[in-house]
């Protein structure tokens, strides 16, 4: 595996003309690997550890919401949900107390590997790519992959009809693994957004667990249930080194299934149905069938590198266009703040403070899911025969959203740059009869630009990295590609290094170019041709 990474990374670096960096990258990789190995690896000590601590720490994400794990509406300090009850019952069977640990859903597995908690218990589907990474207990819920489409769209009839169609689902879900290579998958990080985008026509279908579909999709009058594609299972995920803990949890789940307690819990959340009857008589044969024979993970190969390069392309395009917006917009904001009439200066000041004072993630979210659906962009485009452009909406919002955010930072950079130009320069220009706008354009701004250039470069490099946030609005850029591939190849090191190398390959030349440009502006300018 490491040899493979070495081969891929070194080929990549060589192609980029950065072969000199190879020793560095290898050193970094070894350091990471070493750190990984030195983590405590007490084989089979899981159950003893949990018992000694007297607490079973279970990881989940309250963002998944009702009915899994969510804050009690009557008492927001208390967590409720069927998984809270199951965790409590399992812990009780083990003779310990249950303790919830909040963790981003898409990073539950790496957190389990780092032992942020003892087990994963949160709509944790049994998927081929996870089998082998974690030990699964017997299931505590049988779900159905439910397909939904718009009422007005009869073209979606079954799984097969999804071929090439835009289909929304959660990143890292079983549905994602089913859809990949078949439909044009649009990945979301929340449960509400896929259905919202299906209503507005950003996607053609959504494939997700029946629990999610029932809560978020079915209530929307514009949508219809197409049917169930297949069954799937929620089970408890345990660290592979904690085989004894896995066995104990398995036994505990068996007891609460057989005693009828599980049925009561699921019934309280209106989740009990025929499918769940299987849970009571669950046998070892069922478990073997559920786990199946997982295909061996594909090695990190050429195909992945190509996907990464594509992701890097998206990152570069989004960052460049966003900066292309941020620079002129920031300039206007800075000028409005320094020289505009008072109301305009105030407005520009407010813009800068608000955009700097709120998370860019929130801005992207509000823009894409909050504001844009009301503009009916898609309908306008389709009316003009430009429906194909609608597919670029996420990319467009990514550029505009990041651009508007960075404009605030650029505005401050330019303001500092303008203020760094000595007052004498302005006075000399005014005394010659130049107007204020002429003075700004011909004297102040060209000098301010030089003062600002290093900061603009820094901002651009920061933007390259910040652009990874646009995955919340379904744009698959470099970092997102990395997380997808990491699940695929069952490892983070290779994809992580490749991802880091690509970011570096983009930001390093940028820094170089900027330094050269600075030196050029600073130093000898080409002498004007003699007359």
């Amino acid at each position, binding site marked *: 595996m490491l040899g493979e990474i070495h081969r891929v990374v070194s080929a990549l670096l060589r192609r980029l003309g950065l072969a000199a960096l190879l020793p560095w990258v290898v050193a970094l990789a070894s350091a990471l690997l070493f750190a990984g190995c030195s983590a405590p690896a007490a084989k089979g000590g899981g159950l003893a550890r949990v018992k000694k601590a007297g607490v079973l720490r279970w990881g989940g994400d309250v963002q998944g919401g009702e009915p899994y794990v969510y804050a009690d509406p009557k008492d927001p300090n208390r967590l409720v949900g069927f998984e809270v009850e199951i965790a409590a019952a399992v812990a009780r069977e083990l003779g310990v107390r249950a303790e919830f640990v909040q963790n981003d859903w898409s990073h539950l597995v790496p957190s389990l590997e780092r032992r942020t908690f003892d087990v994963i218990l949160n709509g944790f589907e049994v998927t081929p790519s996870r089998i082998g990474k974690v030990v699964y207990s017997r299931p505590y819920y049988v779900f159905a992959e439910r397909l939904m489409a718009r009422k007005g769209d009869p073209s979606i009839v079954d799984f097969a009809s999804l071929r090439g169609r835009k289909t929304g689902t959660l990143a890292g879900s079983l549905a994602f693994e089913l859809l990949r290579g078949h439909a044009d998958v649009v990945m979301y990080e929340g449960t509400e957004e896929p259905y919202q985008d299906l209503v507005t026509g950003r996607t053609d279908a959504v494939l997700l667990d029946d629990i999610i579909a029932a809560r978020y999709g079915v209530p929307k009058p514009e949508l219809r249930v197409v049917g169930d594609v297949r069954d799937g299972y929620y089970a408890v995920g345990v660290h592979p080194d904690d085989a004894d803990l896995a066995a104990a949890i398995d036994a505990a789940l068996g007891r609460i299934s057989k005693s009828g307690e599980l049925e009561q819990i699921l019934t309280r959340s209106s989740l009990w149905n025929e499918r769940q009857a299987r849970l009571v008589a669950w046998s070892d044969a069922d478990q073997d069938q559920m786990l199946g024979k997982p295909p061996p993970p594909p090695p990190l190969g050429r195909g992945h590198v190509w996907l990464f390069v594509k992701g890097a392309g998206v990152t570069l395009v989004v960052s460049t266009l966003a900066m292309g917006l941020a620079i002129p917009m920031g300039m206007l904001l800075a000028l409005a703040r320094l020289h505009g009439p008072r109301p305009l200066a105030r407005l520009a000041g407010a813009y800068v403070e608000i955009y700097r004072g709120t998370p860019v993630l929130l801005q992207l979210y509000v823009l894409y899911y909050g504001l844009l659906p009301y503009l009916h962009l898609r309908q306008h485009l389709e009316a003009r025969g430009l429906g194909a452009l609608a597919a670029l909406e996420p990319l467009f919002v990514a550029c505009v959203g990041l651009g508007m955010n960075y404009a605030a930072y650029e505005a401050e950079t330019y303001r500092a740059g303008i203020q760094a130009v000595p007052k004498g320069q302005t006075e*000399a220009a005014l005394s010659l*009869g130049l107007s204020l706008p002429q003075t700004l354009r011909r004297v102040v701004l*060209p000098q301010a630009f030089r003062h600002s250039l290093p900061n603009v470069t820094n901002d651009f490099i920061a933007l390259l990295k910040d652009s990874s946030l646009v995955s919340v609005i379904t744009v698959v850029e470099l970092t997102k590609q990395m997380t997808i591939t990491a699940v695929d190849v069952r490892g983070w090191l290779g994809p992580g290094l490749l991802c880091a190398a690509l970011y570096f390959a983009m930001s390093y030349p940028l820094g170089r170019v900027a330094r050269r440009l600075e030196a050029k502006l600073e130093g000898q*300018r080409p002498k004007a041709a003699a007359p």
Partner: protein
Amino acid sequence: MITLRGVKKTFDGRVILRGVDLEIDEGGVTSLLGPSGSGKSTLLRCINGLERFDEGSIAVGDAVYRGGGHPDDPRAVAAIRRACGMVFQQFHLFAHLTAEENVALAPEVVAKLSRAAARDRARDLLEKVGLSSRAHALPRELSGGEQQRVAIARALAMEPRALLLDEPTSALDPERKGEVMDVLAALAEAGTTMVLVTHEPAFARALGGRVVVLRDGALAASDARSEPSPHRDPDADEHD
């Protein structure tokens, strides 16, 4: 040509000019002397519209500024700035432009000359101040004396009716003062109207013309002999 009537200027309630009356005629040099902090620079800046004043009026030709709160007529500001070229103690050459571009900027941008015509004019003026060979140098590649000569050429490029000079040599080494002095002497010879703020009575005498002294916020007419004794070294007055 330039007429000041009762010009009063305060900074944060501190009275700097108490009501200055001054008449400057076409042709000839008016030297403005006075102790440090007496408001000489402030007076020049008021004439050029770089500083507002509280009371009184300043007229250059037909254009007039009035003191007080009301905003200046932009046409009057433009007309006065065109009529009065300003030379600063610290030169203030545009740092990103060559000597030639410094001189050519205003003719091109304000007088709307073609780029070629503006450059021609710049080259002529640089020749006049003896800097043809340095036309393509950036300000930081020039000595202080060279920079100030470029600044004089720049002020002359708009063909002003008067030059306002604020201690044009006091930031220069003694051996560099001479070259700027020669340029100013030649301009005086040619009958250029100049208002020269200086610490150095010898300088004022060398250019001839009238000497006025600013003291306690008001002007007192004077001739050079009433200022510090002539046998004193002019440079000794630098730092009063």
